[in-house]
């Protein structure tokens, strides 16, 4: 066992030996080691987060045909640090009549919920916080905490807009959790486990091939849960000034902001894990854990980029439309897919991998075709309802 093959465990064992040398009891040393690991992971993620700020701003600029930060350092790479300093030195306001404890707790929780997610992310076959056998559920659970944070913020700010934002967030969460769980169950079925590592190991063929629709639905639900455009109703600037974090200033706002970005990135990562083979890339992961980690982060960045792409090119949706979209379209579709996947998977269990993949893909294609048909009908009816003169869009357009 060398540093290259398994750095984490090596370090852990080394540290354990060290502590034993100092004569700490076993349980205490384990505790300490795990603590160190957590701190390490968190700090790495925060660094990544800082980078994300920069990435986001650059990409936004490109989307909006600007240059973006370009003064501090090469390509303005130092800009985020400047931002952090600015946030730190701003006045920390607590509005009158605010519920102080909760008000201050909310941003911490919101960032915490994101960081908790990383506990189960396997950066490499041997680098992971913990390999929960109920990982998929864990994602939802932490998502719930994030929502909790937003509600606390919204309520504690003693501000109508904030409260409205919180309400919206709850509504969105409760309605989009359902399709999200359903689509998360599809990789679970295919891999036969909820553990992230197991799912990745099972992806000899990326599940985006076996279940493209599921991937799409998951992404949509994720965006909704993140509360990013086009579903950024909890902080719709043009309606409810800034939604739940209207009252937050300085680093508290910074925490929310960082939390949001990292959340998006994390979901990109989960998207990659669930549907794009996680740290696997044509056997490159064999080269070493660090390579694998790089691969995973790259894929996560790809997912994050997709989220940004959607964010900066889409209009905001009305709340009722959004909920209807979830309940009347995504949820039934997700459950139909779930059933179809389970069925086909059971039927083709013993078939060769090729046939299995083909059958899955075929199922998804057929389902997709049906969905497109339904959407066209619905759209035409809507058009006819709104503007009877409008001609219906023929197929293939």
């Amino acid at each position, binding site marked *: 066992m060398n540093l290259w093959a398994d750095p984490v465990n090596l370090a852990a064992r080394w540290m354990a030996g060290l502590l034993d040398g100092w004569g700490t009891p076993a349980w205490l040393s384990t505790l300490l080691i795990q603590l160190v690991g957590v701190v390490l992971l968190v700090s790495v993620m925060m660094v990544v987060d800082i980078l994300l700020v920069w990435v986001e701003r650059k990409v936004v600029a490109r989307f909006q045909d600007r240059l973006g930060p370009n003064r501090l350092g090469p390509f303005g790479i130092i800009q985020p640090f400047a931002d952090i300093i600015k946030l730190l030195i701003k006045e920390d306001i607590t509005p009158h009549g605010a*519920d102080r404890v909760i008000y201050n707790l909310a941003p911490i929780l919101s960032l915490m919920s994101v960081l908790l997610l990383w506990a189960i992310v396997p950066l490499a076959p041997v680098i992971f916080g913990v390999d929960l*056998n109920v990982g998929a559920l864990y994602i939802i*659970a932490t998502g*719930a905490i994030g929502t*909790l944070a937003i509600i606390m913020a919204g*309520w504690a700010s003693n501000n109508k807009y904030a409260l409205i934002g919180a*309400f919206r967030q709850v509504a969105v*969460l*409760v309605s989009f959790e359902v399709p999200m769980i359903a689509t998360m169950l599809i990789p679970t079925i295919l891999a036969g486990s909820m553990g992230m590592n197991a799912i990745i190991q099972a992806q000899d063929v990326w599940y985006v091939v076996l279940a493209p629709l599921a991937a799409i639905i998951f992404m949509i639900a994720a965006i909704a849960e993140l509360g990013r455009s086009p579903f950024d109703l909890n902080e719709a600037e043009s309606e409810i000034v800034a939604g739940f974090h209207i009252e937050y200033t300085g680093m508290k706002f910074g925490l929310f902001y960082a939390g949001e970005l990292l959340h998006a990135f994390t979901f990109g990562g989960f998207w990659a894990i669930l549907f794009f083979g996680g740290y696997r890339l044509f056997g490159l992961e064999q080269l070493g854990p660090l390579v694998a980690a790089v691969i995973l982060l790259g894929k996560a960045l790809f997912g994050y980029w997709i989220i940004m792409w959607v964010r900066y090119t889409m209009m905001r949706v009305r709340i009722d439309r959004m909920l209807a979209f979830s309940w009347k379209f995504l949820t039934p579709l997700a459950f139909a897919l779930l059933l179809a996947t389970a069925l086909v998977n059971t039927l083709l269990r013993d078939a060769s991998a090729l046939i299995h993949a083909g059958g899955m893909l075929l199922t998804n294609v057929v389902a997709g075709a049906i969905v497109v048909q339904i959407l066209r009908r619905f759209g035409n009816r809507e058009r006819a309802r709104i503007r009877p003169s409008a001609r219906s869009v023929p197929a293939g357009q």
Partner: protein
Amino acid sequence: MNGTQLVFLGVGAVILISALLVVTTRNLIHAALWLIVTLFGVAILYALLNAGFLAVVQVVIYIGAIAILFIFAVMLTRKELRDRGPQLNPAWWLSAIVAALTFGGLVWMLQGWSGLTRSAGEIPPGFDAVGALGNALIAPNAFVLPFEVASVLLLAALIGAVYVAFTRK
């Protein structure tokens, strides 16, 4: 006295204290949030009991859905955001006595029971609690029927809730 026991004692203390706060705080939102703390504690207890799945489900269902619904309802059912006046009935002492009696009775019954101080058996290696639970839930000779009934119950609750809370225009 080892690590786990320490953890248990801490968690237990958190649970009981937060539960007391749930039933005593004046501010309902705080009560709901304290409830969440309690639920977290319970989830940790599940984890201590090697029921990881239940722990996560506890978080998902209780915190992710139920507690948030509570907060939602609290926010929906008030004229102003603050709660004024006593939150307890005038006869709260009576109910306190009843609760105390219940606790006393329960503990008294328990200490009369032989298996009270037994300790947990070893988990056999390779025992997959989640898989076993899943099989138990769908095995015809086990609990498939209660499981289905529960699903029907949930559906009925869904429809009923929608119907009850629906504003007729």
